[in-house]
């Protein structure tokens, strides 16, 4: 379970990037964060990944709270969060396999067999045959798939994707969103920050609209398309910030 409770972020004095945002996301749910540039999407993802702490309110991930969590617990929390970025952030001098394996090696999380887990993660994103390729030998879509494999190899309870299709063409964009959809259906919460409102509608996913640092709408997924998810996700009171 992921929730923000009246979470606000003030970077400069009297300059709030986020204002008292409240919402909750369940396991297995796919949620789109959308809004214009500067709306606060990236800041919101940073609060959820604990890369930043809220200036006011609270961020909660499973048993971790931004109010009570100790710094030494941060690495342990981050092992349960998969991050995907617009620019992929792959190590250019390592193969797809090595980029994915890097996570397990750096965190000492190779229980259950490093090789088996890396191969499974690459298979899950459809890159079994490209494991030895270097990032520069892969297309943009393939690079993003490697980044997604890296994000899921440690079995996270949430995947946070910040504009994951910003550098990709339309067809590849759809493939990536379908892939993220599959990941959420397997039980991992997926939050995607994107400008692309149309995709959220196409995928019948819940969408949070941000503008000027405020959550102006929390549009639930249509019941017909994702009944199971909608049942799990209760309506979140927006405490007066809904437009």
């Amino acid at each position, binding site marked *: 379970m992921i929730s923000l409770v009246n979470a606000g972020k003030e970077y400069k004095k009297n300059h709030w990037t986020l204002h008292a945002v409240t919402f909750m996301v369940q396991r297995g749910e796919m949620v789109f964060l959308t809004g214009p540039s500067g709306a606060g999407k990236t800041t919101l993802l940073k609060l959820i990944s604990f890369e930043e702490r809220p200036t006011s309110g609270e961020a909660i991930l499973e048993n971790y709270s931004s109010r009570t969590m100790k710094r030494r617990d941060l690495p342990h929390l981050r092992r349960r969060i998969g991050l995907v970025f617009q620019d992929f952030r792959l190590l250019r001098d390592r193969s797809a396999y090595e980029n994915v394996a*890097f996570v*397990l090696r750096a965190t000492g999380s190779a229980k259950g067999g490093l090789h088996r887990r890396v191969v499974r993660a690459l298979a899950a994103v459809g890159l079994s045959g490209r494991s030895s390729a270097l990032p520069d030998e892969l297309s943009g879509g393939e690079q993003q798939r490697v980044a997604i494999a890296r994000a899921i190899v440690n079995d996270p309870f949430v995947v946070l994707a910040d504009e994951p299709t910003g550098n990709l063409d339309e067809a590849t964009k759809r493939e990536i969103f379908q892939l993220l959809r599959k990941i959420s259906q397997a039980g991992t919460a997926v939050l995607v920050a994107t400008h692309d409102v149309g995709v959220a509608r196409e995928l019948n996913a819940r969408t949070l609209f941000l503008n000027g640092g405020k959550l102006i709408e929390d549009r639930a997924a249509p019941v017909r398309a994702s009944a199971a998810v909608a049942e799990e996700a209760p309506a979140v009171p927006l405490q007066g910030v809904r437009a």
Partner: protein
Amino acid sequence: MSTLLFTLREGILNLRRAPLLSLTSIAVMGLSMFVLGIFLLLTVNLRAAIVAVQSQVEIAVFLREDIRDAELKNLDQFLREHPGVMTARFLPRDEALAEFRKELKEKEYLLEALESNPLPDTFEVALYDDWKSTERISLLADQISGMAGVDEVKYGREWVGRLNRIIVAAVLADLFLGAVVAISSLFVVANTVKLTLIARKDMIELMKMVGATAGVIRRPFVIEGILKGVLASLLAGTLLTILTWTLAHRIPEVKPLSISLLFAFILFGAILGGFGSVASLQGYLQRWSRE
């Protein structure tokens, strides 16, 4: 794979991943270590010079002609048992004259005018280094002067004082220069390592992102720093050996660095490389822990 194996592997691979950057930083660190080594060589030779000059400091105890056997025995026992006395050689007057004659060589004829031997019986007293300070040598000389049968004690009071002052000044200058060179080397090494860190910023960020602990992030860079430090000090050690060898051909008195000092030098390089990495990484990791 344990994180320890991961860090070892990453540390070694880091050297190979950017060979040009690695070679440049090893060369810069090596030259910096070479400057430190030259200073070390100067220190070793300064120390050898000080020991050589100090070894010439000794006390000459001239005895009275009418000294009694008991007084001579007493003085001999005092000198042999004194903790500051390394050797006390009794030189009978006849032997002293014979030695003097040898020293004069062809001017020996000067002694022909002498009707009798003017030289007294003498004790030549060599001291341990820690008894060669102005205060201690003067104290010992006064003690000996007060003993029965002693006519005069000579050790070059002014000369010893001046020598000790020169030694203190030389050692202080040496320490000051050493500190300056060591601090400069540390800065050069830390900045060289920082270049490596900037080149690997993406990897550090990625490690933070996926939940590697600060220790796991730090260790590959410390291992890389240590390896670079060892290679740099080996390079500096080789240059120093060539320099010493070349100098020794022109000035035979030049002393080379001992094997144990060369080992200590390499160990120091390793520590410097590792410490440089830790110091440079601190900024990154502190920024991280503030998040």
